[in-house]
């Protein structure tokens, strides 16, 4: 039996549903993650048939990741998406920062083992950072290979909790790239 659309199910029009979201800042903030993920899915899908031979999106415990099979590679790489935000104490056009956290289901005893909140490079190989909250363009991303990102000072096998991004108004500097295909090429040369 076909599932009713989200609009039919709740008895509200699209405009009413979006209006409901728009009035609730907390809900809107949560939805922005799925907005970024939708744009990242679209972006990755646009490379299928060129640098990517196969793409799978998976949503585990509310946290989305992508399995990407690059051409001529048997094993997929894993990618995740985060949203960039401006630090409260930053000056206009100053550095922007992003946060890294793992979801609670992966974190174990966070109080006893704080490093469990941090990602290891084995968790995913590519990080996509959506710049929507900074540039208002939600399809604009910066990408980096996790092996090139800074490590946590106390846990060198984990990624640092915060990573500084280049200002979106200037050219991306390593390890960041605005073009994910550049990273795919780099992974072929430097697995």
């Amino acid at each position, binding site marked *: 039996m076909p599932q009713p659309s*989200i609009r039919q199910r*709740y008895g509200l029009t699209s405009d009413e549903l979006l209006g409901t979201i728009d009035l609730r800042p*907390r809900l809107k903030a*949560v*939805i922005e993650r799925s*907005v970024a993920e939708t*744009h990242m899915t679209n972006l990755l899908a646009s490379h299928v048939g060129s640098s990517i031979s196969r793409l799978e999106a998976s949503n585990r415990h*509310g946290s989305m990741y992508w399995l990407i099979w690059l051409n001529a590679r048997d094993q997929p790489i894993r990618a995740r998406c985060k949203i960039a935000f401006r630090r409260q104490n930053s000056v206009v056009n100053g550095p922007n920062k992003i946060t890294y956290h793992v979801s609670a289901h992966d974190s174990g005893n966070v109080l006893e083992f704080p490093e469990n909140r941090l990602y290891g490079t084995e968790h995913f190989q590519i990080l996509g950072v959506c710049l929507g909250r900074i540039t208002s363009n939600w399809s604009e991303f910066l990408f980096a290979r996790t092996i090139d990102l800074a490590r946590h000072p106390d846990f060198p096998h984990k990624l640092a909790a915060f990573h500084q991004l280049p200002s979106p108004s200037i050219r991306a500097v390593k390890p960041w790239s605005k073009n994910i295909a550049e990273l795919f090429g780099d992974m072929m040369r430097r697995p």
Partner: protein
Amino acid sequence: MAKHPLETKYGLTSAELLDAINARFRLKVALEGAVAEHQMAKHIDRLVGSAVERYEHHDLDSYPDFSIRIPGRDTPLLAECKNVRESSKAGGEAYRVGGKVVAYKVETQKTRAAKGDPSSRYYGFEQYHILGVCVGKKTGDWSDFLFVRTIDLERHADHSLKLAVVQRVQLLDAEDMRPSKSESHATAQYSTTLRTNE
């Protein structure tokens, strides 16, 4: 048709936005909370000009969803909106007698407790005056509500000034609309319409 501002803001169509939400369980749960609030606002809105002078919706942590100003009362009535509890198990979550559904359930506790005080997860009786329960998950009509006064709800077994975690919600066509079987609640009733004059 003109684009909704959120479509412009996020660069996605309304269908893409709503599909993205629909595909993510936790987001859908959050949206369903907002949908229920939207529908409850319509119930309150219908009373503006008669039983209600004005009302406000709040999107704040640890604060009820609505404050309702009524004639002859200095302070607002505070109202909280909750969705009836549902699960994916066969037949859904409900109270049953002999396999037959006799009542629904609603969870009246907060998402999390404050550090060092597990009981802070439970609502105190003073935190809001009216509970509106959207039973749309059960009936398919998200404008279906049951309203009850907070003082008529079940108390927590270990914290007498707090609400029990799960409350009984009568079926819309039930003859007995009491929220509790206890003697002290003999006259308490769920109502399908919001009443502010009790």
